[in-house]
């Protein structure tokens, strides 16, 4: 059984379609990444799946329960960490845990167990009496995650859980996510940070409410960047970009600082040395190429590929 099944889910706000006919499945224990730029509809999707808002059309089941007809059962089986830090800042770490434990109906002994677990996993055992408003963002997020999974839900929804934290806290947080997943919890996580998506088992790329790509990070890369990618350094990346965009060996190019990421076209795969051909082409047009080499594409490259594809198809 899939943890989450979504069929043609759509949400409109007035005339604006925030989530557009989205379908996907999430397997049990998967870390499922929901990627997209700000405003692409990630939070809206999560909020429909958690029963906070009602979809305009479409269906979904979460842990086998229909989100429209059995919202109470859905709620008993999920944890949710919203995009905002949503614990009580004027309650201490421990009081927050007690409150949410009570709300989830944990027995006293189970609450004690789970409280210790949360304090330990968040590294807050010593600071259990601290008001949570006084914690750093990284600690707040770990505490929020702890409170969201106090009742050991089958599925946990994390909406941009690592927004605004330093890289170390972020890595620690992803460690926790992996532990949860290893213990059988399905983790549905949204992010607009493409580096993070590499940690997911499977991802969906969302753009303007529509799914533009889905698969494991590896699958996505080989699907969208079939013919390899070049890293090209130049003094004049803008002119190089304009020239290369229309070149027959190039599928797509994007500017990264003073370099270009160039994904190669099908024609390039027949070429013996596409990189040298491209260098020669640029230099014949008076552009100096400081370096050119093959690289492993990142998900960011995939993302740029997918959103620029309609233009290059035309």
């Amino acid at each position, binding site marked *: 059984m899939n943890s989450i099944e979504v069929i043609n889910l759509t949400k409109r706000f007035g005339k604006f379609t925030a989530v557009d006919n989205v379908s996907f499945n999430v397997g049990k224990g998967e870390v499922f990444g929901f990627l997209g730029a700000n405003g692409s509809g990630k939070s809206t999707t999560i909020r429909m799946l958690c029963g906070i808002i009602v979809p305009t059309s479409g269906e979904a089941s979460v842990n086998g329960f229909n989100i429209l007809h059995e919202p109470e059962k859905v709620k008993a089986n999920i*944890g*949710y960490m919203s995009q*905002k830090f949503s614990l*009580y800042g004027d309650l201490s770490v421990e009081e927050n845990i007690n409150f949410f434990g*009570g*709300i989830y109906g944990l027995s006293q002994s189970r609450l004690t167990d789970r409280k210790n677990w949360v304090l330990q996993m968040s590294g807050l055992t010593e600071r259990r009496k601290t008001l949570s408003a006084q914690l750093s963002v990284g600690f707040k997020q770990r505490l929020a995650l702890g409170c969201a999974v106090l009742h050991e839900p089958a599925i946990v929804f994390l909406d941009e859980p690592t927004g605004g934290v330093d890289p170390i806290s972020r890595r620690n947080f992803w460690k926790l996510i992996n532990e949860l997943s290893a213990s059988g919890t399905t983790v549905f996580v949204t992010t607009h940070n493409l580096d993070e998506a590499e940690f997911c088992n499977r991802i969906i790329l969302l753009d303007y409410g529509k799914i533009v790509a889905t698969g494991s990070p590896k699958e996505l890369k080989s699907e969208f960047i079939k013919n390899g990618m070049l890293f090209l350094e130049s003094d004049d990346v803008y002119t190089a970009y304009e020239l290369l965009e229309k070149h027959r060996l190039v599928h797509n190019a994007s500017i990264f600082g003073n370099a270009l990421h160039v994904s190669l076209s099908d024609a390039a795969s027949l070429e013996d040395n596409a990189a040298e051909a491209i260098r020669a082409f640029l230099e014949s047009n008076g552009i100096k190429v400081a370096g050119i080499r093959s690289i492993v594409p990142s998900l960011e490259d995939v993302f740029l590929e997918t959103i620029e594809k309609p233009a290059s198809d035309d």
Partner: protein
Amino acid sequence: MRAIIDFMVKEFLQFLRDPKMFAVVLIAPVIQLVFLGYAANRDLNDVKTCILDNDRSNSSRDFISAFEKSGYFSVIQYSENYSELEREIDLGNALIAIVIPDDFEKNMNSGKTSNVQVIFDGSDGNKASVAAGYVMSVASSYGSKIFIERFEKSGIKVPPAGSIESVTRVWYNPDLTTRDFMLPSIVGLVLIIITVNMTSLAIVKEREIGTLEQLLVTPVKPYQLILGKLLPFTVIGLVAVTLVLAVMIFWFGIEVKGSISFLFFCSLIFMLSTLGLGLFVSTVSKSQQQAMVTSAFLVIMPMIFLSGFAFPIESMPKIIQYVTYIIPLKYFTVIIRGIVLKGLTIADLWLELSILFLLGVVILVFSSLRFKKSME
């Protein structure tokens, strides 16, 4: 049940840690009370009076001396005729003028009602109505059947309903102090301000910081959420009532004639409305600031103006008078004045209490449904 208790614990912890809230609840009522207690002291002790005695009988002289002895009036002129008296009022030398008809003694002796005219300088309505109270008081203590016809300076007859109200008022407040009359109703005012503000703020705050959304994803039922929010503020409301009563009794020396526990019971019934209104405000406010403004302008001010707390209902336009029937504070003001000043019990107040209860249930149910809907 457990969830509701957890809610209450949480709410109290947050309340105790929020110095702002603390101030709203514990200090504001006391300040309001003391301030209003002194401001409401509108009593006059030297009402400048002209008297035109058209009867010049023993009875009329008796009547006049009752005024002189009451201590409220100082007679500045025994007028010879109507125009002389009128001039004193016009010049502002006298606040009131009393005109005794020439058949005063005759009517007295034959047991008929005598019509005594009282003319007021209406330019200061407050003063005039306090003075009117005194006239009623003296007239009624004089005992015989005297009908007081009130006239404003302009010659416009003030509806007798007003004078009847004044009679009852004097009756139950023999010292004629406006303070005694005003202070008990401050219980209602304080309850409104505290519960409407706090309830709406507490809920909107959770929406602002995102915890409300978090709660929506838990198995908590909307009714648990509502009770978890409202019960703590009920308790806090009762604490505020206690405070107000304590200041009233020990500071201002107003004795509660009726049962204190009945008073608390009525306060609880009244809070159905105020908590419901707080809940309502939370459903129409996006920010805490908006909630405060909405509370003030949509709930608290109309309540104060339309309840008879600040202005007598009888002096409002007819249409507005009908509106006052749905103002909970109107009934609570009657109830609380009744209990404190007259020692009334449920036998006297059951009607007001029933209406208050019904209004409360309607408001609370309506707001709860709205709240539930706003969460979906």
